[in-house]
């Protein structure tokens, strides 16, 4: 365990000195600042105002940006490290491959999750200073959701980094994976599938295994429990899951997918050439 934490800590230090991390943190911190600056807390949508309104907008934006950010930065830095000789040197030190791989996973998770979470904390602190009500239930649900998003795409990123031998290929693969998930969002491909006669259950199953869609729907459930904006498919989701059930699914499934992907990545890493 000591080596795992040492690796995680080393990865955190490496990451926070990297340019991508500065951009990454600025984007999420910047979103919160901009939402305050543009007075989003004063506006109203579906009856929501104040910090709840801000968090709803923040989560929608984050779910759009976070997956591609996590995928690209993970594969770039992990595959880039392999190309630049970081693996060759650090793996010549007496550390188990499990401690190395999972240490990096853990360190990377902290690095990608913290800025997003701290931006939300910043919003809560600012709202408290301004005397606004803090929707703690919503805050906790969103935190769980963001944690699951980061974990899921980090796991997929680690798998891609183990498959691809160069950072260019890894980046291309990561982009393709993200694009595939994006194409299977209900608004694009599922609409066509239904029009072409695909059974609606199949379409719903596809949307339930697409992590991007799972997050979008979960974010909607949190402020629109009846899923009015989803139309008829809301019945299938709510009949099978209920509101709470869907929120649990939206956290458990992506975390499981991320863990399985990372484990597959670890298996490939352990069996193949390391540098």
């Amino acid at each position, binding site marked *: 365990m*000591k*080596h795992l934490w*040492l690796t995680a800590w*080393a990865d955190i*230090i*490496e990451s926070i*000195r*990297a340019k991508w991390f500065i951009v990454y943190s600025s984007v999420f911190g910047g979103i919160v600042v901009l939402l305050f600056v543009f007075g989003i807390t004063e506006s109203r949508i579906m009856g929501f105002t104040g910090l709840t309104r801000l968090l709803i907008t923040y989560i929608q934006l984050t779910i759009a940006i976070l997956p591609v950010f996590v995928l690209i930065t993970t594969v770039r830095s992990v595959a880039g*490290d392999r190309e*630049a*000789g*970081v*693996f*060759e*040197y*650090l*793996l*010549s*030190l*007496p*550390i*188990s*491959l499990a401690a190395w791989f999972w240490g990096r996973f853990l360190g990377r998770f902290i690095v990608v999750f913290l800025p997003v979470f701290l931006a939300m904390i910043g919003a809560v602190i600012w709202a408290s200073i301004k005397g606004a009500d803090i929707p703690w239930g919503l805050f906790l649900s969103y935190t769980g959701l963001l944690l699951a998003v980061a974990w899921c795409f980090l796991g997929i990123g680690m798998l891609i980094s183990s498959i691809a031998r160069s950072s260019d290929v890894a980046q291309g693969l990561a982009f393709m994976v993200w694009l595939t998930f994006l194409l299977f969002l209900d608004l694009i491909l599922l609409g066509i599938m239904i029009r072409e006669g695909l059974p609606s259950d199949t379409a719903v199953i596809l949307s339930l295994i697409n992590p991007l869609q799972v997050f979008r729907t979960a974010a909607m459930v949190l402020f629109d429990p009846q899923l009015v904006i989803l139309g008829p498919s809301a019945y299938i989701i709510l009949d099978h899951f209920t509101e709470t059930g869907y929120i649990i699914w939206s956290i458990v499934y992506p975390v499981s997918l991320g863990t399985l992907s990372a484990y597959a990545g670890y298996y490939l890493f352990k*069996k*193949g*050439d*390391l*540098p």
Partner: protein
Amino acid sequence: MIKFDNVKKTFRRTEVLKGMNLDIKKGDRIALVGSNGAGKTTMIRCLLGEYTCEGQVRVNGMDPREERKLVLKDIGFVPQLPPPLKMPVGQLIEFSASLCDADPGEMISVLERLGLDFNELKSRPFVKLSGGQKQKILISIALGREAKILILDEPAANLDPEARHIFFQLLAEKKDEAVMLISSHRLDEVAALVNRVIEMDQGIVVLDDRVEDEVDLNSVLNSEIKIKRVDEAFAKAIKAWSFESEDGTSWQGQVAGPDRLRFLGVLSRYAAILKDIHMVEQKK
């Protein structure tokens, strides 16, 4: 101590190691030479357990892939190209020492013997240092612990003559307790450090020979070089070896014993203007 038994390594369709056999015993100080693509780096990576391969690699009877922690605990490695690590020097040393169960103080003392000021460097990112500084830090990490096998890939390439001399002294201190495998493109770079030469070509060992190892790794040669006329290029080259002159034609300085061949190699470029070379081993 180290055994390669019919080791083969293929990348896609290219066979880089073609059934390599090698036996390395305690006390061996080996120059691993060969041109680019000869298979030196691949061989080193197989030895470090970083590459999977056909055949058998054994270090003290253990498979470096299966028992990597036990095997690597005994191996100090200096790569040819320093990794672009962003972590500060202090943390890199702490990190390496913790993984190796070594005393970071030992690594720091080697680093300071090589002429670096740890307090000045400890908070600076490793990647921002000069090539020579990086090389010295990696050497400190490899030599500042109880390594029984030293694998050094072009270790002195970026070092100045003074640091090279100290580096040779450090190797001399380890020579009875450690096996050394020093990889280089050129034999003259490492000839004086070793007692065995292994040359690789296209994935196999083409030469495995013992060499005289009379050279004391600690020795120093007091040297005087005279040239026919003042020459700017020569002055620049010899100043890099810390030689001094009053008139520009007679130069005095010291050369580390194991560096003599390399030094003579530099002089050979100015053979046309050389008048006298005088090198005497300093008495202990």
